[in-house]
């Protein structure tokens, strides 16, 4: 049995310690907001926060999270999630939407650490999250909007 803390709640999960965090979240805990993209840390769709760091849950064994706190898109701090949600709607960012939870989890770390990001900061923070629909320009615009809404 592995003890996990996810979105502020404690869980005991009966899984192999090598199971990726992604599959524990989705299959064991039913938190399906986090998506499977590549399974090799290449695309960012599976990004969650582990003690505040934006880890790739598809390549992180659940043993990595023992004694730490996982935050998923479902449990993101409203101080970050609300301005991002509002900006995403305002700029009509998603197309198919599959990568967007990973995009928002990465953007949340940027806004947490940098209240006034410029285009370069946004590119540096978001370049690891791939969008097959090519919504990058709208993502950048929405992050500028979210930064203003957050103040």
């Amino acid at each position, binding site marked *: 049995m592995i003890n996990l803390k996810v979105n502020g709640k404690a869980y005991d999960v009966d899984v192999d310690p090598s199971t990726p965090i992604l599959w524990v979240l989705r299959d064991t805990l039913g938190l399906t907001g986090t998506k499977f993209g590549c399974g090799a*840390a290449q695309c960012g769709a599976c990004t969650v926060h582990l003690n505040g760091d*934006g880890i790739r849950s598809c390549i992180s064994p659940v043993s*990595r999270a023992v004694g730490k706190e996982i935050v998923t898109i479902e449990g993101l701090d409203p101080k970050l999630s609300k301005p991002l949600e509002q900006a995403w709607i305002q700029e009509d960012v998603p197309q198919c939407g599959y990568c967007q939870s990973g995009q928002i989890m990465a953007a949340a770390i940027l806004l947490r650490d940098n209240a006034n990001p410029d285009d370069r900061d946004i590119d*540096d*923070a978001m*370049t*690891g999250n791939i969008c097959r629909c090519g919504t990058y320009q709208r993502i950048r615009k929405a992050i500028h909007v979210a930064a203003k809404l957050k103040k």
Partner: protein
Amino acid sequence: MSMEKTNSRTQNRLRLTIYLVLTVGFASAMVLSAGNKNYPAGNNHKDPAEPATENKTIASSPIDNKIENTFRDVNKQRAQESKEAFLAAYKVFMHPRCMNCHPKGDVPLQGDDSHLHAQGVKRGPDGKGLYALKCKNCHQDENLNGDYLPPGSPGWHLPPVNMRMVFEGKTPRQLAIQFKDPKFTGFKNFKKDMMHHVEKEPLVLHSWTYRAPPPLSHEEFVAKVKEWIDKGAAIPDK
């Protein structure tokens, strides 16, 4: 009379012996002093073979010249061996397992062909990445079991922005000069800190655990770096 001659010969021998001892001692001190120098960066440093020539102003007798020439030959030989040891270690320094984390830009290199790291990750001020793209987010404490999955080791990072320690594109001469520059390495004691880094640094040791290994074993690499330093840390010619 015979006794006086004997005494005189004995005194002359004693004088000659003292003279030789002092000359050899002085020359040795000069050589050791030269071997222990921490040369500054740039092209104005002296090779260990050079100091013997400084004795020219002091030595003038045939014996002195012979001693001087002997020391000069020994120093030249040591310097040559030192340079050759560095050239052997240089192949490891410039191998992707080492050079990929010592790039000339702020994007780390990746793979056995040293391409720019996917995901567009960057160094960041502390060398640990930026925002959601911190090195340790993917590079965990151990290598992952699978093709193309991120290798891992505790403390995975690039050199920080204020001490980039660039290897990429450097010639053997440039790299050797930089290793001896505390501004490049941050080393307080060149020999001790350099040896500790190549022998003990976990990220250095880790270079032999995944993908194409460097061309020397870790033991051979350490031995070459040690030989380079022990024989005067001579700077290669090119």
